[in-house]
Each structure stands twice: as structure tokens, then as C-alpha cells.
């Protein structure tokens, strides 16, 4: 034995490196049995954070007894602009406080049900191995608290939620969150980490109807969501609430889906996930565009941001993003990097098959586009163009979409300057503008419309929804076009 050790140094070095690799990956605690043998060493209070923030990484700390103290609050909050909702929360936020542990920790969990609450609650943590995931031991009436403990056996990102009857309603009102169990030694270091959780909401009034909206059980049973949002509200991750990073940084998102009903097709517009810890477990996939996150499931996604700009987080079941609120923003600041993304290099005119519009033999040519003979005809024609061209973003009643597309209805930006409006329809618009006191920073493409069509659609817009009623004529459009 001794002879071998001395004479085969290379062999030992190889062995050593294999062992240390295994240690880094947490493989030494691969199955539940070995995790059960991890001894705890000392006691700490868990740092709990509200979304989109996460507690500090566990790094190299040994397994400990971790004290978690969580309060359940039933409280009113804002779902969307002018729309409020009674949320049921773990720790006062939707999703609930983020809990960060490592494999082998012994978690002593105290659940407190605030005396003002009307209902009993409990907690089912998917990270718990035991009956009900803790739910059977944590059922607690208002004005009472309950303590139970568990050992974290399997590393990964797990959902927790309330499991009191009617379970669907407790989850639909926001009672879910994430608990992370890091492998020994922790996940590799990154520059920024954030906490995002999708949820679907069912309100008595339809999407956008103002006021305090009660939960609608029938819609929930039918799975007709009025809102699908990240972090409990349509603006939880947009505007000033956007998450941020610098060019060159690596971002790790802990993404969960509370449901209750809908599966998320999580996607970041303009990014590719370098790494996805599939379903929050150990399997790592690379170069992923969209990752599926089931209701009651989670995923960890990582990517390096190479270019500055606003990257939009969506559920790529895309009507949920643009019509129901499943939209968030990652604002990346730093130097442009033209080798990664050039921006527009050149704009030109594209005319297929040469510069002349060709006609089939025997065809008498396309019918002349109709010309409006009166203001009312102009409005009527403009309405049709609006429905085809503008409605998708600016919406049926010109109300726009909060934080994404500015409103046209009673819009100061529109009514203050007709020529500017004409120019925007002709040439498009990029960059920040303020409409009715709110900032918007998105892109409107140039519209390929004739001068007549531009005049018609703008006259329709100006004559609708409480706007100034100005008539825009083709001559005005031509003037703006030639002045450019």
C-alpha cells in the first residue's frame, strides 16, 4: 500500500481531483440517505426576503439549525393600476418570503396566523419529506402560531404553498413562495440573483375593471384567468420596479410558478438562457430559449447579459404577457457592444421583383383605394385601419397597456401636437415619452400606410375617446412627410 502511494503520485493527484469535483457538485449528498447523516452545527436565524430579492448565498457554511419565522397576513394590495385585491400572503408579499437553506439544514419553522385574519392556514413545503410537506403539522387558526421542524434532504428550488381547504382558493389568493435548498458548497457564484414567481388571478370584474375586486371562484374552476402576473401585480417588475444589471454580469433568476392553474412558458425577450436547472433540480440544460415551469414547480435560469437595453420577461403564452400582465423588465446598463448586437445599420425601401409593381396579364389592376369624401367617411375608414394596425398595442378603447404601450384615449401627448402624431405614424417612434404623467419607453414601428390612410386613421383616433376631434387631411400628412 505504502509502496503504491509513493510510486504512483499521478494516480493520487487524479483521484484527488475527482473527489474534489464531486464535492463541488454536491454529489456526496446525492441521495436522501447521505443527506440525513449531515450533522448540524450551531443555530442561525434565516434571512427572509421579499421578491424580487433573495437572501445571501449560503457559500461554504456548514449545515445548521435554521430558525424561520413567518407571519401570514390577509391584506389589500394593488393588482393593477386602479385595481385592488385582498391578497393572502406568507410574510406580507406575493410570492411569500424567499427561504434559503442548504442541504442537511434542520429548519425550525414557526407559522404565525395574524389575529386580524379571518381564516385558518397552513404550509406545504415541497422541500419537506414528510406527511403533507408540513401541512399536517402546521394548521393554525387566526391569532395562533405553530412550530414544526424538518431536515432538508434534497437540494433544489421548491415551491411552498398553503394547503387549507379550499386549497385552490388559498393558492389563487397568493399563498405561495419559494424555498431554496443549496447543495453543499452552494451554487456557483454569479453577479446578480432575483426572485420571480408567476401566478394567475381570478377577479369578479374582468381585467382592468377598477376598484376592489373579489375573488371569483367560478372563473377559477373554469380556469379563466383575468390576470396572469409576475410577483403578484402587473407592475411588480416594470418601470421603477424593473430588475437591473450591468453589461457583462451573469444573472441567476429563481423562477417559480404558484399557479393555481396555468403552466408558464418562461422566456426573456432578447436573451438565451446559458443554463437552466431544469424544474429546479440537478439536471442542467444549456442554451434554452423558453423553459416550461409547471404550476407548483420552479426553475433556476442563468444568463450573461452582453448588451445594454431593456429585456422583457414574459410568459410566452403571449396573450398572458400583453393582455393579462405576465410581463416584467430587466434593465441592463453599460456600453453598447456592436459585435453582439448592432442595432439598425441601414434602412431602405424593399420592393420585390424590381421597382415596378407588376400585374398579371388580363388583370385590370388593383382597384383604386377609396378616397374619403367627408369627415364621417374618413372616420369610418380610419376605424378599420385602426382595427388592423393599431389595436393590438393601443387596444380597443385606445387605453393602451400600462407600462408597455401608451394610451391614445384623452392622451395629452397625442392632442398637444398633431404634426408630431402624423410624424410618428409615418416614421415610428423609439425612446422615452411621457403620456398623461406616465413614462413609456418602447418602440413603435413605422407604418406602411398611404397618406390617405394615415389621415383617416388619425382622424378616427382624434374623434374618439374624448380626444380633440381634429380632422387630419392627406395634405397635412404629405406636408409632414416632405418636411422630414
Amino acid at each position: 500500500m505504502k509502496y503504491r502511494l509513493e510510486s504512483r503520485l499521478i494516480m493520487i493527484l487524479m483521484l484527488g481531483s475527482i473527489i474534489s469535483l464531486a464535492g463541488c457538485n454536491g454529489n456526496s449528498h446525492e441521495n436522501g440517505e447521505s443527506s440525513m447523516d449531515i450533522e448540524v452545527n450551531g443555530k442561525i436565524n434565516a434571512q427572509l426576503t421579499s421578491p424580487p430579492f433573495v437572501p445571501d448565498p449560503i457559500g461554504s457554511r456548514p449545515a445548521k439549525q435554521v430558525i424561520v419565522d413567518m407571519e401570514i397576513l390577509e391584506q389589500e394590495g394593488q393588482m393593477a393600476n386602479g385595481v385592488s385585491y385582498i391578497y393572502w400572503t406568507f410574510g406580507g408579499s406575493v410570492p411569500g418570503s424567499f427561504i434559503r437553506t442548504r442541504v442537511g439544514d434542520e429548519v425550525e419553522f414557526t407559522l404565525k396566523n395574524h389575529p386580524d385574519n379571518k381564516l385558518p392556514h397552513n404550509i406545504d413545503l415541497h422541500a419537506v419529506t414528510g406527511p403533507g410537506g408540513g401541512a399536517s403539522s402546521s394548521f393554525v387558526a387566526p391569532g395562533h402560531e405553530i412550530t414544526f421542524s424538518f431536515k432538508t434532504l434534497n437540494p433544489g428550488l421548491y415551491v411552498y404553498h398553503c394547503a387549507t381547504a379550499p386549497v385552490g382558493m388559498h393558492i389563487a389568493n397568493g399563498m405561495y413562495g419559494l424555498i431554496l435548498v443549496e447543495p453543499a458548497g452552494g451554487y456557483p457564484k454569479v453577479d446578480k440573483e432575483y426572485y420571480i414567481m408567476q401566478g394567475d388571478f381570478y377577479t369578479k370584474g374582468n381585467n382592468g375593471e377598477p376598484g376592489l375586486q373579489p375573488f371569483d371562484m367560478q372563473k377559477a374552476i373554469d380556469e379563466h384567468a383575468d390576470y396572469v402576473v409576475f410577483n403578484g401585480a402587473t407592475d411588480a417588475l416594470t418601470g421603477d420596479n424593473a430588475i437591473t444589471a450591468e453589461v457583462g454580469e451573469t444573472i441567476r433568476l429563481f423562477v417559480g410558478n404558484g399557479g393555481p392553474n396555468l403552466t408558464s412558458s418562461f422566456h426573456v425577450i432578447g436573451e438565451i438562457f446559458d443554463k437552466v436547472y431544469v424544474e429546479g433540480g440537478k439536471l442542467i440544460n444549456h442554451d434554452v430559449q423558453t423553459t416550461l415551469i409547471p404550476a407548483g414547480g420552479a426553475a433556476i435560469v442563468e444568463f450573461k447579459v452582453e448588451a445594454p437595453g431593456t429585456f422583457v420577461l414574459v410568459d410566452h403564452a403571449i396573450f398572458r404577457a400583453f393582455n393579462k400582465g405576465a410581463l416584467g423588465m430587466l434593465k441592463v446598463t453599460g456600453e453598447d457592444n456592436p459585435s453582439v448586437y448592432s442595432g439598425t445599420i441601414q434602412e431602405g425601401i424593399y420592393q420585390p421583383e424590381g421597382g415596378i409593381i407588376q400585374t398579371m396579364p388580363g388583370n385590370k389592376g388593383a382597384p383604386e383605394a377609396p378616397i374619403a369624401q367627408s369627415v364621417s367617411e374618413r372616420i369610418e375608414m380610419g376605424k378599420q385601419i385602426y382595427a388592423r394596425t393599431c389595436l393590438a398595442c393601443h387596444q380597443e378603447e385606445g387605453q393602451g397597456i400600462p407600462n408597455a404601450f401608451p394610451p391614445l384615449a384623452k392622451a395629452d401627448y397625442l392632442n398637444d401636437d398633431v404634426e408630431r402624431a402624423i410624424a410618428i405614424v409615418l416614421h415610428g417612434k423609439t425612446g422615452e415619452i411621457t403620456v398623461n404623467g406616465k413614462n413609456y419607453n418602447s418602440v413603435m414601428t413605422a407604418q406602411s400606410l398611404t397618406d390617405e390612410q394615415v389621415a383617416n386613421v388619425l382622424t378616427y383616433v382624434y374623434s374618439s375617446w374624448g380626444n380633440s376631434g381634429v380632422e387630419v387631411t392627406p395634405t397635412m400628412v404629405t406636408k409632414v412627410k416632405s418636411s422630414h
Partner: protein
Amino acid sequence: MVKLKYIIAFLGLFSLSLTGICQTPTAMKPIKGGTMLPLYGLDSSKVWVDDFLLDEYPVTNQQYLDFVKNYPEWQKFNVKSIFADGNYLYNWRGNRQLGENMNPNSPITNVSWFAAKAFCACQDKRLPSVDEWELAAKANETKPNAENDSLFNQRIIESYETPNTYSKTVGSTYQNYWGVYDMHGLVWEWTSDFNSVLISGESRQDGDADRNLFCAGAAISASNLRDYAAFMRYAFRGSIKADYNIKNLGFRCARTN
């Protein structure tokens, strides 16, 4: 001499309480009995409920104050801890004083099951059973049984979500078919056998009957809104113990006809 005075006073108080001078009793309304389907489920689980009388309103703060004036053992600082935990009459200022800003005509809350039982007994009444309470509560304004009325059920669920309804005045919600007020919309109410459905009150593993109240059962057995509103009540009842005192839990009394 002083001692004798006390004894006389004590005897006087005792005899008063014996003769049942408690507080102004609430008027009662007759409820017609019949078969009842408790919570959810199968026809085989139907139960029979006899005719009974039920208080028109939940017991108020003022009525409870009058009661404890005559029964010092139920006063805030005198109550035995096995009969009521530390939240008993939590907002009261003293043994004979309601809390600041407490409406005398709001329902009494933060009372234990033991206290509620003693209050009713003092009027020769008792707490209603779960089945009696549920029978009376399924009536809306016009029908004795509105459990399949989706609007009625949606209204009940909404009231369960609305905060601070305990501070409303009794009689401020709706009067149902039987002439009884506030069965939904003010407070949860104690029942005599509140804990008979869930044996331990906190487990999905006690047995099939109890498991139905949680995850699996709620998904499989509940098919309509009526079930969901009922689930919330049964879950609430399952979470409490007889010495608990909760801000949104009051009571009213019943009597066998």
C-alpha cells in the same frame, strides 16, 4: 360586620344568578327541521335535524358585558385559563369595560367555546349544533334552501374574504327566510360540536373522512361553489380548540323547540 356584609352581597349575587337574571335575551326565530347534507357528498350521509329555535342576532358586546357583570368568573382577568386562552376578551379594557372604540352593538368576539356555552346556558339556551347552524345558514332572503344559488354562494365567499367585518353592527347584513340576521357576513360562529368533523383538526392522515377536507378531497369531492363556502367554514372549525378566542369568531344561541 364588614365580613357579613360581603357574605350577604355574595349570597345576593348568587341568588340573582340562580334566578336567571343575565342580560336581555335575544328574540328567537323558529327554524323548520328536515334532512341535511352536511358539507358535501353522498345521499347516504344525510342527517335529520329537528325543528329548533335560533337567536335572531349574534350575541353583542353589550349583552356579553351585562353577562360578565353578573358572572365574575367569566370576566377578562378572572377566567380560568383552561376555559379561555390569553386572547379572551383581548380588546377589553377591564373586567367590566369594553375596549376603546368598541361598538356595543357589534357581535361579541374573542370568546371561547366554554364562555359561549355558559352564556347560552344562563338563558336556558344552548349553542346550535353544526347541522342546525348549517341548516339555518343555507337560507337566503327568499328561500329556505339557497345552496344551489350561485350568486348567494359567491356573496358568502366574498364575505369570508372581507376584512374587519366583526366591527359591523348586528342586523346590518341580511335577514334570511327564517327571519334570522347575519348568518353570513359578520363573524364565524361557535357551534356545540364544532370539532366533531375533524378529529385532530389538523391532519390529512386521520382517516378518509378528514382527508376529504384537505388537498385531495377538496379537488375530488367539491364540485360547486356551495362546497367551497362550506369548506371554508369546516376548515375554520377544524382549526380551532374550545379554549381559543378569535377576533372573527362569535356566537348565537339556540333552543330545542
